[in-house]
Each structure stands twice: as structure tokens, then as C-alpha cells.
């Protein structure tokens, strides 16, 4: 480039020295049209192509348009014409690419030697060692002495391959997923009530409802893009929020029901009783499509408002008011999430919500339903295809017909399919503790942070002869315990499908190269099969898309039938497809709900009324531990154990740096705690330091701590729902005091804090 030094340009330069309106710094922030319908984008990041994939954090399953240069992702924006999110995303979605670049990505297999030190090894050595160690353990202690813990964070094709390789190829019996921690109660409730694990709704129901009942759910923070649907509802709906805390969602309610923790079951029975008493039920629907209503009506008869008020802490008038609002509404929808599921009686609470929908005929019509909002991006895929406690396709390991069917579809010997279902997560942990399980393979989950009651977990994992951890990051609490760490590619670095809360199958794509030698989970499972000597059995499972074709065959004729989806390309064109989508006469509508015909999946086509008496809290507060501890999501910018979300500077700006505990002003005053002051929260199992956040939104006698800090689960009590075996994270007894000087000088540090 030549520069002319004529007079005007010299003058211009001199002027720029004094007053520079343009220049290199200004140009850094110029925005230019980006094509692809994106509008203006940063001029430094103009894409030459785009592609749409679903987000890899929560189960909302938002579409994200990834901006590409030479096939590589450089930026992303939420997808306008994806039916789920309409161009919107929460901060996690916006930052989904950033977290791939973290410096603590695992890039090479790490193997622990005799001296306990870990060093990089080749994939060949890693997989040879893994196969040899697992073989040796199985030879000594039996095939079921090795087990796996899987996840709701990997693609359906990957979890299916893992489940198949582990159980049909490697001979494992026990494997469960971290979905046990979030969805098990809903899954069991649906299965028992409807005959299949089938959340019946479309997100659009949130816009069509005239009465939205949210139980133990805070979508403002946990599912902001679903909350967007509520704000777009044109019917000025009643919004009833059942939550001990006055959350952002409760703030937006037309009626907030601040019940005592875990008294939701009693409240729902009380409301059912009032509706029955007032005749506000749909007799015709009950008669045509359900069973056991009479027994249910009889069962809830004692739940008079006075009793319910006593148990829940609500005024009787409020309970009557809630029932009246439901009675007045014609399209009532009930929605729940972890407040219900993570309970010592989560299944029955979910079924109490289902019962309300069934008895009022609020299901199968627009704006209705008993609707569980799922947690993880692919919890729904896991529920159908992880081959853990259910046989592939929502089948039963114990059922010979189901086994024969799967063996035929896959072309494997029926004898390779275990005849008993797996132990659930807690059972596997118990198995490790008792010595029955000697080898464990943990994939894309972080139990050393997330599992309930950490007090003995690390010691338990230490008993294993061989612990394999497969993760994106080498720094998670669990990855650091591994004898063998397998570096995995993450979301955006591999292909596959996720299934979201409204049963929509969506695509993930490969838009980034994985760092170092990290391999997709799919490829790692392929290697595991090969080195274990069972690769031949999975010849057809050669790529995620070929497994997708296998999954279609496994789904055919089942409630979750999606055999009508041709392939990934078809999914891409359609913006995701909800199941069912059978090969014969599929309904092409982009948003569908189940049960519009009133036919349920039990053999008789009828839904069941299922109920049981509420049970007392596993650990009620007492004089020594007078507070009840609630746990949950801290902010929309945080995801679970923070292995990913802590890696984005922008996300870190959006939540408090230090762990915190919400406390009511009255309690804080008594304890001498002020906002920002360090406190110590103690349970019978452990203690955690956290800064006080004094807020009237948490009632006196309760404390709330986000689940994202590693110390929270040192406090929680290992209590479980007896039917779903889901841990009850949300109520245990604790005490709190102000930290002494110096006691809190060094807050817990871990991979989640920077």
C-alpha cells in the first residue's frame, strides 16, 4: 500500500493526532452485516457459513446458530427459526463455545503408575491397560464387578453405544446415569401412571394455558427460555408457584404458595380433595381414561384445609384460593422440576400432580398437562437409550420378550443381554463401598462434587481397584481421582442427537477440533469395545449416524417411535422432531403433545391414580440443627458442578465469586450475620463456609445454598425416594454461625473457583 503525502492528507493526519475519530481501536468494534439472516455481527467475526445445533447445557434444547469460518466455529447466536427458543438463549448458551477453550481441557490419556503419579500415555497404552485391568477384575470377581456411571450430557448415540458395549460386550450388569440425580422420580412417576416414561407436553402449552402451576420450579433462573413462553401467554394466566422461597418466579406469580419444604405432596392432596368436594372434576374423562379414581378420592378425603394448612404452613384461605383458581380455569397445566424430583417422596409428589391433571381432564388438550421439565440436555435420551436400568428403548431387562426383541434388532446373542436390571446409582456406590464393585468407569459426570453426602464418597471411590474417568477436563473433582483419565471431546466437537424436555430430537454437530488427542465419547467407546475384544459385535455401530438408524429400529412400535425420521439431514431441516414420529403416517406438525386421544400406554389404555401417605422428613430440624437447608441452582449462568461454566469470564461475572448462603434477616440478626460476612454451615455430616446473603426471600428457619459449590454436598443427607432412588438434595437439618476471624480466610478452592 502506498501512501500519498499530499497536503490534505498531512493535515488530516495532524488533525487525527489531536482528535482521532477513527483508527485501529475504533475498527476493533465495528459491526457489519453478517448475512445468513444474522443482522450485524462483529466485523472481526464475519461467518462464511452457519449451522444450527442444540445447546449442550439444559434440557430446554435451544437451537444455536454457530457462525463458522472454514468450518470452524467462531461465534454463535441463538437460532431465530428453531421452534424451541425463537432466537433466545440464556447466558450459558451464549457462552457455549467459550468453555471449549479452557486451559484445563484434557488433551491426552493420563495413567496412574504404581507410585501414584499420573503421566501421559498413548491411547493404545491407555485402552490396553483399561481392557487388561477390567478383564483381570472380572476374572477374579465376576463380570458384574465392574460398572459404569454415565450421564445426561452426551449424545443419545453415545450413551446407547456405551450401554451396549458395557453390558452386551464387556459383560457388565450395573451402570446408571447422573440422570438419577435429576429426573428419576419423574421417569418412574410417568412410567407407573401412564405406562411409559412420556412427558406429554409441547412448550407451546405454556402459552396456551390459562392456569400455570409451577411446583418446585424456578424457570426464571433454571429455564429462562421456557419462562419466555409464560411471558408470551396471551391469556393473562393464573400463575401458581409452589416454592418455600420467594424466587424470581414466585415474584411473577399471581399466587405464591410458600410451603414448608417437602410439604408439596400434602398440599396437592389437599387441593385434590377440595376440587373433588366442589365437584370440579371431569367425570367423563375419569371414567373413560383412568383407573382407581374412587380409591384416590377416598384417600384424599382427610386432607381438609385445616390439616393441609398445619402441614404446609399456609393459611387455609390460601389453599382454598388456590383450588378456586384451578376450578375457574379451563386449561390448567402443572409443571415441576427438581423441587419435586429431588425428594424422599418425589415419585408420589409427581404423581399427585399427574392425578390433578387426570381428574380435571387437564391433559391431552392445548395448555394442559402434568409436565416434568427435565434437567440435562440429554436426560431424555438417557431415559430411553442409556441401557442402564432400562433396556434399550425403554424396555425391561427382566422381560424375556424385550430381551429377545433387542437381540433380534441388534443381531446379538440374547445371552449377552443381562437378565436383571442394573443397580441404581446409590446401589453402585454402595457396591463400591461393600467391595462388590471393584472397577468403575465414570463418563462425563462429576460425582465427587455432585453426589449427595460427600463425607464418605471419596473414601469409597478410593476402594476401587481401577477407576476410569472420561471427561473434557482433567481438573474436575472426579477426574483428579482417576487411575486412568480419558480425554473426551465436548459438545461442538462431535456429532449426535439430544432429546429435550418436550421430546424433541435435535442435532449436535462437529464445529470445533477437540484439543490435543481428545476423542469423542463415541470413539472412546469404540476403542473400549475393540480393546476389550468385543468390537466385532458393534460392526454396524460405526458412526453416530449409523447408530441413529439402529435407535430408530429400537424405537419402532414403542411409544417413543421415531422411525419416521429419515436421518440427521431430515432432523436438521425440520428444526428437530418430537417423538413419536413413526414411519407410518407421522404427524408433521412442529409442536405436538401426547394423549389427545386419551389413550395411555398401559395395556388397558388407562392412566392410573397412584398415591401414598406423605412421609416425614428424613432429617427434621431439631435443637442442635435448627435450620433446614435447601439447595438448588444459583443463577442462570451456572451449570451443575461448574466444570464448564466456570471457564467463561463472562459467565463468572454473573454469579457471586464466593459460595453463599441465603438467610432470612430475622435469623441473620440473631446470629450476627450481615450480607457479605462469612458464615459456617454445619450438618451432622460436614461443614461448609459461605458468605451470608441476607434476604427476606428465604423464610426464617430455612437456608438456601446453590449446588454449584463443592462444599454444599458435604452437608446434604443421603436420603432417597424409595421408588426412584433419586437423592433428596433439598432438605436436611443444619446449623449456621458467623465464621470466626481467620476461619474463612481461605474459602474452599477447587476447579470450580478461580
Amino acid at each position, binding site marked *: 500500500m502506498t501512501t500519498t503525502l499530499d497536503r490534505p492528507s498531512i493535515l488530516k493526519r495532524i488533525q487525527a493526532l489531536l482528535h482521532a475519530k477513527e483508527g*485501529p481501536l475504533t475498527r476493533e468494534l465495528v459491526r457489519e452485516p453478517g448475512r445468513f439472516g444474522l443482522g450485524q455481527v462483529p466485523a472481526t467475526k464475519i461467518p462464511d457459513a452457519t449451522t444450527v445445533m442444540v445447546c449442550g447445557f439444559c434440557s430446554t434444547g435451544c437451537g444455536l446458530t454457530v457462525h463458522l469460518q472454514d468450518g470452524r466455529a467462531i461465534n454463535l447466536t441463538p437460532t431465530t427459526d428453531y421452534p424451541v427458543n425463537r432466537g433466545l438463549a440464556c447466558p450459558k448458551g451464549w457462552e457455549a463455545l467459550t468453555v471449549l477453550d479452557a486451559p484445563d481441557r484434557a488433551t491426552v490419556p493420563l495413567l496412574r503408575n504404581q507410585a501414584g503419579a499420573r503421566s501421559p500415555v498413548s491411547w493404545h497404552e491407555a485402552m490396553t491397560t483399561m481392557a487388561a485391568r477390567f478383564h483381570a477384575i472380572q476374572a477374579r470377581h465376576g463380570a458384574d464387578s465392574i460398572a459404569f456411571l454415565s450421564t445426561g450430557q452426551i449424545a443419545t448415540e453415545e450413551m446407547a453405544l456405551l450401554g451396549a458395549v458395557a453390558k452386551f460386550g464387556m459383560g457388565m450388569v450395573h451402570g446408571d446415569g447422573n440422570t438419577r440425580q435429576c429426573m428419576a422420580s419423574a421417569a418412574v412417576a410417568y412410567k407407573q401412571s401412564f405406562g411409559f416414561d412420556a412427558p406429554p407436553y409441547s412448550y407451546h402449552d405454556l402459552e396456551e394455558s390459562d392456569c400455570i402451576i409451577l411446583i418446585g420450579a424456578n424457570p426464571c433462573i433454571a429455564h429462562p427460555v421456557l419462562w419466555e413462553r409464560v411471558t408470551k401467554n396471551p391469556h393473562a394466566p393464573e400463575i401458581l408457584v409452589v416454592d418455600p422461597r420467594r424466587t424470581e418466579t414466585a415474584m411473577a406469580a399471581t399466587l405464591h404458595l410458600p410451603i414448608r419444604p417437602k410439604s408439596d405432596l400434602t398440599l396437592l392432596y389437599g387441593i385434590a380433595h377440595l376440587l373433588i368436594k366442589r365437584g370440579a372434576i371431569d367425570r367423563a374423562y375419569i371414567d373413560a381414561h383412568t383407573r382407581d379414581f374412587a380409591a384416590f378420592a377416598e384417600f384424599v378425603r382427610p386432607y381438609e384445609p385445616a390439616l393441609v394448612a398445619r402441614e404446609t404452613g399456609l393459611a387455609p384461605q390460601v389453599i382454598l384460593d388456590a383450588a378456586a383458581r384451578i376450578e375457574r380455569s379451563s386449561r390448567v397445566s402443572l409443571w415441576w422440576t427438581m423441587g419435586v424430583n429431588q425428594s424422599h417422596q418425589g415419585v408420589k409428589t409427581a404423581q399427585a400432580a399427574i392425578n390433578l391433571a387426570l381428574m380435571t381432564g387437564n391433559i391431552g388438550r392445548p395448555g394442559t398437562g402434568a409436565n416434568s421439565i427435565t434437567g440435562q440436555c440429554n436426560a431424555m435420551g438417557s431415559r430411553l437409550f442409556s441401557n442402564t436400568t432400562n433396556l434399550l428403548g425403554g424396555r425391561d431387562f427382566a422381560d424375556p420378550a424385550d430381551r429377545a426383541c433387542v437381540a433380534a434388532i441388534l443381531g446379538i446373542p440374547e445371552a449377552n443381554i443381562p437378565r436383571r436390571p442394573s443397580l441404581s446409582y446409590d446401589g453402585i456406590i454402595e457396591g463400591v463401598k461393600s467391595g462388590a464393585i471393584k472397577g468403575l468407569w465414570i463418563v462425563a459426570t462429576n460425582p465427587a462434587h455432585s453426589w449427595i453426602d460427600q463425607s464418605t464418597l471419596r473414601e469409597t471411590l478410593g476402594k476401587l481397584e481401577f477407576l476410569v474417568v472420561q471427561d473434557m477436563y482433567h481438573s474436575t473433582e472426579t477426574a483428579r481421582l482417576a487411575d486412568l483419565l480419558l480425554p473426551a471431546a465436548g459438545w461442538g466437537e462431535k456429532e449426535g442427537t439430544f432429546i429435550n424436555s418436550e421430546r424433541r430430537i435435535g442435532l449436535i454437530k462437529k464445529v470445533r477440533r477437540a484439543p490435543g488427542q481428545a476423542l469423542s465419547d463415541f470413539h472412546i467407546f469404540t476403542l473400549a469395545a475393540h480393546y476389550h475384544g468385543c468390537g466385532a459385535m458393534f460392526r454396524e455401530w460405526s458412526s453416530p449416524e449409523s447408530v441413529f438408524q439402529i435407535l430408530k429400529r429400537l424405537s419402532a412400535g414403542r411409544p417413543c417411535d421415531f422411525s419416521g425420521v429419515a436421518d440427521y439431514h431430515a432432523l436438521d431441516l425440520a428444526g428437530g422432531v418430537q417423538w413419536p414420529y413413526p414411519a407410518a403416517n407421522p404427524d408433521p406438525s412442529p409442536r405436538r403433545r401426547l394423549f389427545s386421544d386419551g389413550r395411555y400406554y398401559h395395556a388397558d389404555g388407562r392412566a392410573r391414580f397412584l398415591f401414598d401417605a406423605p412421609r416425614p422428613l428424613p432429617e427434621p430440624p431439631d435443637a442442635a440443627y435448627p435450620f433446614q437447608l435447601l439447595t438448588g441452582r444459583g443463577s442462570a449462568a451456572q451449570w451443575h458442578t461448574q466444570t464448564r461454566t466456570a471457564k467463561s469470564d463472562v459467565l463468572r461475572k454473573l454469579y457471586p465469586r464466593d459460595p453463599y448462603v441465603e438467610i432470612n434477616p430475622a435469623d441473620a440478626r440473631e446470629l450476627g450475620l450481615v450480607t*457479605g460476612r462469612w458464615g459456617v454451615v454445619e450438618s451432622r455430616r460436614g461443614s461448609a463456609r459461605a458468605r451470608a446473603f441476607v434476604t427476606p426471600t428465604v423464610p426464617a428457619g430455612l437456608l438456601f445454598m446453590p449446588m454449584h459449590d463443592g462444599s454444599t454436598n458435604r452437608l446434604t443427607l443421603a436420603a432417597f425416594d424409595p421408588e426412584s432412588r433419586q437423592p433428596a438434595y433439598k432438605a436436611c437439618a443444619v446449623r449456621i454461625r458467623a465464621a470466626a476471624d481467620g476461619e474463612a480466610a481461605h474459602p474452599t478452592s477447587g476447579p470450580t473457583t478461580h
Partner: protein
Amino acid sequence: MDFDDGVGSRVVTPPASRSWDAGRGGFLVDSLLSEQGDLSAVERFAQFHEDVLEPLQGRYYSALLPASPPGPGQQLAFEVDLDRCSGCKACVAACHTLNGLDEGESWREVGLVVGGLAALPVIQHVTSSCHHCLDPACLTACPVNAYEKDPVTGIVKHLDDQCFGCQYCTLACPYDAPKFHPGKGIVRKCDMCGDRLKGGEAPACVQACPHEAIRITVVDRAVVRARAEAGEFVATASDPAYTAPTTRYRSLMPVDFRPADEIGMKLEHAHMPLVIMLMTTQLSAGGFLVALFARLAGLAEGLGSPPHLGFCLVFLYIGLAASLFHLGRPLFAYRAILGLRHSWLSREVLAFGLFAKLATALVAAELLAPDWMAGHAVLRTALLVVVVVAGLGGVACSVMVYHAVRRPFWQARSAGVKFAGTTLVLGLAAALVSVSVSSALALNGPAGLLIPVLAGALIAASAAKLWFETGDSRERDETVVEPLRLTAGLLRGPLKRTADFRRWLGVAGGVVVPSLAIAAAAQGGDKVVAALAVVALTASIGGELLERFLFFRAVTRPRMPGALTS
């Protein structure tokens, strides 16, 4: 678009080398690693909307933009419906992504307030960025005219290439809108995505809010002014009368809010170059001032001569050099006086620049032509008066630099006393050194009365200043404005040790050692006096540096309500 031409059946076939049955696992590993490196999404899937220039998202956000451009007496403004905000903070992430900002950088923030009655508690997130004020404090403060307020849209735009990184705007803005980018050495801030608006597109935050809580509206400047003067803005934020912020916050919940970070144990940046600059320029001005007093009192011996004046001049140059280290882009320091008409910082720069030139001329004259100077006594005094006026003018500008940003701790009635006090204390201490050292080295005649006079004055000035400063950390009742109570809390809390040390140094250097010097002078020990004077000056300098360090660290920054420290 070519999505129906059969490409759907295209499947990337695995490399031919993959063999399930081969015993050679290493071969499989290699093929998988190579497959992992292939980026397939563009080949495998169709492109949509490839040549669509207009934003698809427009269908959702167009209702959030004004129907017509602002007319005379109007401007564009953000409007936030607090009742719609769910606290998801997508606006912050979108601002970062859609504007191509650096890692961790965003021009929007979300604070939190809590309050309400025990029976009906309230929690409210408050999203904010630049309020594009009618009277932008940033624009007024900027010494290099790096801010422009668009006459039509009212957008307050920052000229990144004009900025030299003095960060004065970040002190002046009561809402923390301009953000200093240390890596680039400049400030950057929200421009309401002005070029998006020009093209009919919504700003990043408006596009991204799932709940349509943020919109752009046209506001009447007169209405904004009236609301600002009536104090109507948003709970817990700084008084809007200062800058007349145009953002309109709407909420149906009129309650008594508290910011979630109300305890405010946040320490502000110390700005060490500024600490040094303020101390040394004041020492220098004070040194010349004492010289002038001495000359007028007929006691010029040792103080009107080059050693003392040169000594003071050295400190002045140290201060000016230090101030360069404060700048993100010191090469452009010459722009600093462009804002003379409105910026106290420009005025401070000009005054100290004059002070330096005049003082240099005076010292040069005293050095090069001492006899000529001695022969023109009136001129000599007049020149000294001019130098002193320039120096004190600079100090006064320094006071105004901080006074102008309306932080109670930095008000002239406090900062003025402190800066004047430093000028006197250090000027006297420097003079004491000059006189006693000259005397000990027998450069001049015996110091005589000067030592006890200077030391006595130093003791008086130091004691008065230290007493004045005790007010900063005293426990305040509700009658004192909240920022001062918070500052006092910081000085009694996390900054207590520094504050104690500052007092200790001040008492030692300004009271104890000068007293010893008086005693030693009475004994006639010239060298001891000189040594004590050096100790007194050193300790006083240390004390004043700490005082100024606390001046910056303990100030309470007015800003939007915050959340727990992130």
C-alpha cells in the same frame, strides 16, 4: 438453497482403514484421531438464509424499537421493565458476543436489590449499561474530548482512538458505565449499538432479552430533566440530578429496596501513579510557597536559593513523570489539555505544566545568573510569586478534579483541606531539610531562627491535618450520608492497619521528629538537626502517600445497585 437435492443421503463414510477385527489397535486409534480432526458440519448440512442480509430476529424485536426517529428536544433511551426481567442476564452475555468484546468484557451489568415487607418480600434484578445522560459526566470530565453526544440520537459515544486511558471518566460516571480495558489502555463503553439502530436493528441486549424487558424509546429531554430533578430513577442508584440519565426504569412494585451488596466492603483501585503525583506536586508547590514566605519575611537564607528550589523542582518532575504511568496510552499525553473548557483534569494538567515551566525558569535563572537575580529583588520575588500561584493553582485544580465527581469523601471541603494540608506539611518538611542540610554543609550561614520556626510550623500543620483526618474513620450516625459511613467502615475495617500506620508515620514525621530537631537545634548540633530533618521529611512523605492511598482505596463509588461480589 439446496437442501432438497439429495444431499441428505450423504453420510461421511468412515476411513477405509478402520477395521474392527484387526488386532492392531494403534491403527484404529490413528484413524479415529484423524476422523476427530475433520470438521464436517459445513459439508454435511445445508446452508440456510445464506444471502439474507436483514436480521431474521427482527420479527420478534421490531416492536421494541421506536417507530420514528427522535425529533427536536428528544433523544433515544433505554427503557427497562423491571417487572419483566427474570434475572437470567442473557443481556450481559449477548452484549459481549454480539459486539465482539474481549474475554470477560461486557457493557451491561445486572445488579440485585432485595426488600419489601416480611410478609411479601421482593427480589429484583436491575439491568443497566450506559444511561446516555443529558449531562454525561464522562463527557464533561474527559480531558481529551474522547466523548461525543450525538445531537440527534443523544447517544453518548466514546472515541476509542482518541482516548489516552486516563480513566477519569470511570471516576466521574456515577453508574460505572465506562470500563477501562487495561490490555488496550483505553476505556470502552456502550454506544447503544448505534450502527445497529441506524440499520433498523435492535441493540444486542434488546435482541437477547427473552422477556422483552429492555426496549429503545424516544424520550423528551425536558421530561428526562424533570424526572432527574425530582430524583426519579431506580431504587438505590446515585442521585439522577447529577447527570440526568435517560434510561427509564418501570416497575409496579414501589417498595423499600436495599442493594444486595449493601455492606459494600469493596475497596476501590489505589491508582498508585496518582497517589505519587498528588503527593509530589503538592510537596513542590508547598516548597515554593514556603520559600516565598521566607523571602517576604526576609528569611530567604537557604530557601530562596537553587538547592531548595531545585529540590522542590525535582519532586515536581517526579510527579509529572508518575502521572504518565497512570495513562493507558502515555504517547498521547499531549492531548490532555484539549478539554480545557470543561475538564478539571485538563486544567490541572495545564496548571502543573505552567508551574513546571515557570519553576524551571526560576531555578535556571537562580543557577545561571545569581548575581543578576540578586540585583533585581522585586523581579525575583515577583517571579517566585508567579511560580507559587501556578503551583497552588495546580493544587486547586487537583482538588476540583476530585470534587467534580461528587463523591462525598472527595468533596472540596475534605479533599481541599487534605491537599492544602499536604502542601503545607511537605513544603515545610522539605524546607526544613533544605535549611538544615545547607547549614550542616555550611553552604549558608547558620540557620538561626528558621529551624525552630519551620519545625514548629510543621508540627502545627501536621497535627491539624492528622486531627482533621480522624474524622474520616469516626463512627457516623444516620445524619451523615451513607457513602461516608461506608468509607469510615472501610477505614475501621479492612484498611485499619494502613490507616493506623499512616497516623503513626504522620505523628513521627510531623510531630515527634521535628520536636527533636528543635531540641537539637537549641543544642547547636547542625548535623543532628539535618539528619532529623531528613527523617521527618521521609516519614511525612510516607504518611502523606498512605493518606492519599486511603483517599483512593476507601472512597465509596456511586453506581448502580450490585449483587454479591462476582
